[in-house]
Each structure stands twice: as C-alpha cells, then as structure tokens.
C-alpha cells in the first residue's frame, strides 16, 4: 500500500477542526503571554471566547464519519458532546474573568489550560479507540489538575490539586490496565473491532472481559465521581476556585459519561448481563451517598459537590437502562445539569468575593432582599436541581426515569425518585436562608456583578428554563444522536 493512503486527508482535518482551533488558540495564548510586557493587561479572555465561538460551528457542522483511520469518529453523540463541552467552556470563561480579576491572578495560562482541558474532552468524546480515549483523558485531566490548584498561594487550592492529581493518576492507571486486558483478550484497542471480536464465534473468555470491564469502569467511575470512588470529589470541588469547580463538575464528567456509554453500551454491549448489576448498585450507592452527605453540609461549595455526586447517580440510572432512550436521557440530563450547575456556581463565585470569604450557606441570609435578581436566578438553579417542572433539571430527571422504567428497572426508579425527594431538603435550606432570614452583614455592600459574569448567570438561567419548557430543542438532537 502506498504511504499516502495512511496520511490524513482534508476530510480528516475538517472533522478534527474544533480540536485544531482550540489547540492553536491555547498555544497562541501561551506564546503571547510570554511576550506580554510586565504590567500590560492580558486580553487572553477575549481571545479564548473568540476561539470557543469559532469552534462551536466547527463542531456542529462537522460531517459524520471516521477520521484518522478510524481512530476518531464523528457521529451524533460526538457532535452532541463536543458542542456541550464547548458551551460549558464558554460559560466557564464568562464566569471566570471576574473571579481572576478579583483574585489578581489575571493571566493567560488559566485560559490556555481551560482550552486544553476542553480539547482533551473533545478528543475523549470523539475517540473510537481506547488509546485515543486515554490520551484525551490525560490531556483533559492534567490541565484540570493544574486548574484545581490555580491559586498557588492558597492552601486549599493546593490540597485540592494534590488530591485530584494523586487519586486521578491512580484511577487512570486502572483504566490503562483495563485497556491492556482488553487488548490481550481481543487483540485490538479499536472499539468497533472489540465489539466485532466479542460478537464473533471465537469470543474471548468471559472472565477476561469481566476483569477488563471492571478495571475500565473503576477508572471512569472515578472521573464521574460515582460511589464508591467519590471520596475525592468534595475536597477537590470545595478547594478549587469556584469557576473551576463549576467546570470540573460538568466538563470532564460529561466527557467521561460519553466514554462510559461508548465503551459499555457500544463495545461491551454483549457483556451487558455482567456489568449491568454493577452499574445498578453503583447508581443507587452514588445517589444515596451524595444526597445523604449533602444534607449535613454547611458550606455551599461542598453542598454542591455532594449534590454533583448525587446527580452523577441519576445519570448512571440512565446508563443502567442500556437503551437508546437511556443514552438520550444521559445526554439531555448532562446538558441541563451543565447549565444549572454552572449557573449556581457562577452565583457562588459572585457572592464569595475576594478569597472566597462568603461560602457558608448562612452567609446567604437575606440575599433576596439585597440582590433580588441574583437570588431569583439562584432559585431557578436550585429548583432545577430539585427537579421542579418547567426547569431543565426536571425534564432531565423525568426522561432518565422514563428510560429506566422502559428497561424495567422499577426498583431503581422508585429508589431514585425517593432520593430526589430527599434531595429537595438540602436545596430548600439554601432557599430558606436566602428568602426567609433577615439580611446579615455578609450580604451588605455587595459590589455589582461584572458584565461577563452576568452573561454567565443569566445565560445559564435562560438555558435552564428553556430546556424545561421546550426540551425538544435538545432532546430531538439527543434522540437522533443516541447510540441505538
């Protein structure tokens, strides 16, 4: 075969365009940052926004099909998730600029790291090859480790980054080991090939596949903070800068769920009877641990961290459904959750002020009387997290439990629904404090929110409500993109 047939073609590059754009932008920012004269204001933020806005149509309009000899594949799911992580990136950048200015840490690296992390997530969701998944995961993770410890003089930031890094590397090792087992069993790391090997007459021994699946699941469960691998999440999300926590609870998680679906609902589908009980148990444990631990919290970032664990549990319910509706439900829920959670963290970012001084729930006392608009927005996000109709969070939950009942997971559905009633309690506590307590000194003299932060908050609120009233906007896309 001539060597040219192995060289990438224009079609390959076009399908890879979002990643190319974002990588170029990230690298360029690093260069410009080095050349920036001391004291001159960095405009990396604006540059990042432009890059993300350009990558958005590139992701949306990418033609479906494989790229780079089947290493990557652009299909409906890839397009959905690439769009999602880019939008997440945009909202995070909007809510970061204020924060960085306040902490006097305005530098280009932050934005470059966000861009690299998004590139990694884009690679993860388009990868059709276990090695590519691993590379994407590493690109995304390493950038996020640094982001978690971005304020290098802050002790909690350091703790957060260190914990995230150590446990994260450990989990990645599990994933890699699982990939090795798969390769040993099937002779391939290509997801399509693996599926073919498993469905062919000469299928490898079930035990081997079981071990491989378990190892890969452990690696991914860590990334989505599913119980019993959730222990790192509260410390990391609490310690990291608020906009970074927002990013970590949605971006890497969404990408990891995409991988989970591609590997388990795609390649290892034939082994479903074996891994299904594990996901069932894991989903339930994650919901219970997240919700019941969240009840005890007094710090709003930590509360949102536990709530993000619980929400990963709901999404796992949809994964356990192992169906087309299930994967559509996963996608829709992640999109709704992204808007909701970034919005909630954006309000926390705004309210926390320098050094994140005001992050106790009690600090929010009387916010509704001093800042009715911000309080109303946080109310929308909290109602969406509770799952009250006319918000994206409700429709997401509805669709997840619909998928679960379709798949006859009656008990998991009932327990999940009861869990969501328990969850209402701790979200209501924040509403109680905001609306029903008298204002304390913490809500006085709040500086006005910056324009970009306002875009993040109001944009997320519009997204949350829009997904609740007109879910078809995203749901039709998700249903078309569903794996089966």
């Amino acid at each position, binding site marked *: 075969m001539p060597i040219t047939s192995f060289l990438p073609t224009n079609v390959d590059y076009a399908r890879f365009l979002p990643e190319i754009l974002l990588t170029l932008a990230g690298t360029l920012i690093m260069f410009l940052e080095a050349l920036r004269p001391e004291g001159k204001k960095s405009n990396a933020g604006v540059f990042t926004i432009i890059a993300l806005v350009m990558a958005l149509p590139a992701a949306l309009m990418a033609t479906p099909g494989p790229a780079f000899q089947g290493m990557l594949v652009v299909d409906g799911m890839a397009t959905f998730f690439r769009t999602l992580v880019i939008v997440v990136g945009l909202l995070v950048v909007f809510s970061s600029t204020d924060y960085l200015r306040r902490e006097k840490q305005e530098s280009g690296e932050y934005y470059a790291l966000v861009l690299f992390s998004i590139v990694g997530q884009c690679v993860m969701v388009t990868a059709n090859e276990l090695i590519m998944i691993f590379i994407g995961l590493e690109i995304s993770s390493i950038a996020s480790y640094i982001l978690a410890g971005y304020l290098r003089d802050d002790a909690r930031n350091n703790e957060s980054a260190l914990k995230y890094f150590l446990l994260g590397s450990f989990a990645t090792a599990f994933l890699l080991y699982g990939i090795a087992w798969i390769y040993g069993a099937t002779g391939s790391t290509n997801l399509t090939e693996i599926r073919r090997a498993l469905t062919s007459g000469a299928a490898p021994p079930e035990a081997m596949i079981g071990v491989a699946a378990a190892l890969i699941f452990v690696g991914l469960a860590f990334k989505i903070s599913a119980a019993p691998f959730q222990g790192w999440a509260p410390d990391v999300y609490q310690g990291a800068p608020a906009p970074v926590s927002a990013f970590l609870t949605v971006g890497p998680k969404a990408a990891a769920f995409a991988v989970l679906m591609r590997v388990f609902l795609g390649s290892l589908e034939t082994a479903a009877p074996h891994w299904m009980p594990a996901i069932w148990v894991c989903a339930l444990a994650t919901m219970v641990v997240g919700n019941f631990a969240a009840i005890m919290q007094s710090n709003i970032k930590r509360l949102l961290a536990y709530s993000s664990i619980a929400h990963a549990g709901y999404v796992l319910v949809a994964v356990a459904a192992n169906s087309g509706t299930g994967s559509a439900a996963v996608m829709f829920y992640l999109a709704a959750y992204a808007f909701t959670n970034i919005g909630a963290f954006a309000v926390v970012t705004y309210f926390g002020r320098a050094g994140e001084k005001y992050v106790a729930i009690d600090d929010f006392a009387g916010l*509704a*009387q001093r800042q*009715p608009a911000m309080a109303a927005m946080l109310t929308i996000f909290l*109602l969406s997290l*509770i799952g*009250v*109709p*006319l918000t994206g969070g*409700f429709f997401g939950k*509805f*669709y997840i*439990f*619909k998928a679960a*009942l*379709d798949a006859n997971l009656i008990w998991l*559905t*009932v327990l999940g*629904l*009861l869990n*969501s*009633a328990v969850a*209402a*309690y701790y979200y*209501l*506590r924040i*509403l*109680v404090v905001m*609306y*029903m307590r008298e204002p304390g000194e913490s809500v006085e003299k709040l500086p006005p929110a910056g324009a970009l932060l306002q875009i993040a908050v109001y944009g997320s609120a519009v997204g949350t409500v829009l997904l609740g009233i*007109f*879910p*078809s906007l995203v*749901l*039709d896309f998700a*249903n078309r993109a569903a794996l089966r």
Partner: protein
Amino acid sequence: MTLLDIVLFLPLVGFLLLLILPKESSRMAAMVFSLAVFVVSLGLLMPYWFQYPAGHTFSTNVSWISYPPIRYHVAIDGLSLWLVLLSTLLTPIAVLVSWKYIDHRVKEYYAFLILLEFGLIGVFVAMDLFLFYTFWEVSLVPMYFLIGIWGHERRIYAAVKFFLFTMAGSVLMLGAIIFLYNRTGTFDYGEIQGMIQTGSLVFSPQAELLLFLAFFIAFAIKVPLFPLHTWLPDAHVEAPTAGSLMLASVMLKMGTYGLVRFCLPLFPDAARRCAPWIAGLAIIGIIYGALVALVQPNMKKLVAYSSVSHLGFVVLGIFTFTQQGLDGAVYQMLNHGISTGALFILVGYLYERRHSLEISAYGGVATPAPNLAIVFLITTLASIGLPMLNNFVGEYLVLQGTASANFGWAVFAALGVIFSACYMLWLYQRMFYGKASESLAHHMPDLTMREWAAIVPLLILMVWMGSFAQSFLPSISVQNAAILESTKKLRVERVAIPARQTAEVSRANH
C-alpha cells in the same frame, strides 16, 4: 385559543408584570389582575347556563413537546368548572385580606399569590398527565414561599415540612405517570381512560394496585387523609391569612380532585378493592380531626383540624361509589372551600386586632364588634352544617351515599357532624360571649368596608349553595355519573370472566 387559555395564562402574565412594576403599585395591580381573571372566568359558565353538557368544553389540545408526545391539553367539565371558579374567586379575596396585613416585601408577596393562582387553575384544567404533574408541582413553589416568608414564628419549619411531604408523595405519582406512558405511549388522560374502558389496556391486579397507590398517596397527602395529615396544622397555623385561605380552600382540593379525576376512572378495580380501608381511614380522620379540634387552645389550629375532619367526609363520599356520595363529596369540596376559607379570613381579622391566636385571649368580642360576631356566627353555622346553609347539602348527600353503601360507616361518620357542632359552638361561645375585658374592647373595632367586601361574597355563597343547590349540583352530577359509570362498566366485564363467575355462582348457591 379559547377563553380557558386566557383564564389560565392571565395570572402568569400578571405574575411577570408584577415583577416589573414598582413595588408601590403591586398591591393595586394584583387586585386589578385577580379581579380581571375572575370576571373573565365567569365566561366559563356560559356552556353550563341551564344546560349540563357531559363532555369537555373549552378544550385546547396542541402539541407542547414533540417527543415524548406531551400535549398542552386543557379543558373544563362539570367537575373542574367550579373548582376553577373557586380559585379565581378566592384570589382577589386573598389580595383583599392581605391589604393591610402584609407590610414587608409586598411586591414578592403579591407576585407569588398570583403565581399560585396560575398553578391552581392549571391543576384543575390539565387533561394531560404530564401537564397535570407540572402544574401540581408549580403550585407548590409559591405556597412554600408564602408560608416561609410571611408566616408566623415557626414558618420555616412549616414551609419545609409542607414542601417535603408533598414532594415525597408526588415523586411516586411521577413514577406511575411514566409507567402509564410506557404502557400506552400517551400522556393524554382521555386516551388512557379510553384504553382502560375498552379493555385494550389491562393491568395485573398487583400492578394496578401499585399504580393506584402511587397516585393515591400523592393525593392523600394533599387532602390530607389521616394519618398523613401532620403537615396541615403546622402549615395552616404558620401561614399568613391569605396563605391559609388558599391552602384550605383550594390547595387541599387538588388532592380530592385528583382522587375523583384520576384514581377512580383509571384504576377502578384497585379503587374498589381499597375502598373499605380508605373509608376506614376517612372515618378515623373525621372523628380524630373533630376530637383534636375540640381541645385546641389555638383557634387557627382548631380550624385546621376541622379541615381534617371535613375532608374526611369528602374522601368517604368518593369511596362509597354511589352517585349521592360522589355528588356530596364534590359539592363538599366547594362548601369547605367557602366556609373554611371564611373561617380563616375571620380568624385573620381577629388576629389583626388582637395579635393573638389563643382562644383564651378573646371573650365577649360580640359586644364591641357585633357585626364581626354575626358574620362569624353565620360562618360557624354553615361550617357545622345547619340546613339552608351550604355544608348541610354536601354532608347530607355524603351520609346518604355512605348509608346506602354501608350503614355502619354512616353511623360513625355522623358522629363527626355532632362533634363539629360541639367544637365550633364552644369556640364561638368562648370567644364572642361573656364580658369583654377592657383591653379587648379597646382593640376590637368592628368590620371595616374592606373587610366586609372580602367576606360578603362568601356569605352570599353560603346561603346560595345551601338553598339553591340546583344552580351547582346538576352539572357536577352529570360528570360524576360518567365517572361512576366508568368504574362500573369494568365490574360488569369482570363478572363476565368465567373464573369469577363460578365464584359468584357458587356463593349464590350457598
């Protein structure tokens, strides 16, 4: 777009408008808006003017969410018509009774009150299960804030308890709704009911029981049926007057409405199987509520427990599966809305004067405030079911229906009527008769014009509904007959099943 759509969405427009308007004008705007909604809603009476159509009127059925096929399907029938009118009538009254009482965060208050109206109307007119659930939950949020922000001392506890109780019940209902959808491919109430009627949708007895219970528990919490009633006294006592008014008069009816609308026609078999148990709980509720009301030192709590007792009658009437019982139950929903609503308003008037809810803080009120005393007396008499006043008609029908279903039940339920006379009259005697203390006489001005305006419509309705039941009952009756028919048909079919037939025959032979 029909008149009903306008009635439904006008409050939502009002809510958004109130958020924009300056806070000085929000009280007036709320009044104008809620009155406008009421006037427009009177137009809904047109098809029911001396005629009693059986089916839906003012129906709108358009696609809302394309997949899964969720439709914006709203309609009115004899059952929901009066409940919608009750909501639209009571909202301006609620605004009126809050006029002076609410003095802080006024704008948010009226905005939530109007939003509540939107949710309540929606619940009663939704003909799509998903839409119904949406309104069911949406109505929860404004009430939560109304209790939690403008309530009395323990308001936060009461508000959170109220929210969590309702939420816990309704998530199971959501599960059941999804299950129904997965079996039928539609959320449309009419279509699902049709499938059950024609027998194209059959559940195993166990599945039907679970589905029935999922709906039933959600409704029973809302009613509230003994022993799920514990949130109610807290919520009532802590809520501001208008909150108690809307809660007792309209919100509790969401539960009983749900029982009639969904539990009976959708799961007739299971409903009939559970009827003795539910009737038992209802009777316990009637007697327990009355006895607890008897010993309450707090007048608002007394009225709250009397609600538990009165709503026991409604549930009992529903589960007798007789025409009279069901008619009485639905009529009693409206009566309770009028008379208990009026009681809460009057308790609120007294509280505004004396700033105490303790019965012992009053005595001899009739001397300084004779008009207030007369109005309270009429309401009291209505509440205990004096003939010619509204509750009598409802309670009589319920008891008649119950007696024809099971005489023993009727005997026990009738005890509740007697008890209600005891606690209400004793309350009246302690508060209004006797010699007024100096300080009380000083702080007890008689009714003002605004207060008259809020209570008079309810007094008129008490007399009207008690004396001319034929203005209201026939349209309700027609609808109830249809619902009852739908639960009977199945029974006939069931008897036709051979296994069942042999059982019946062998029993007859003995």
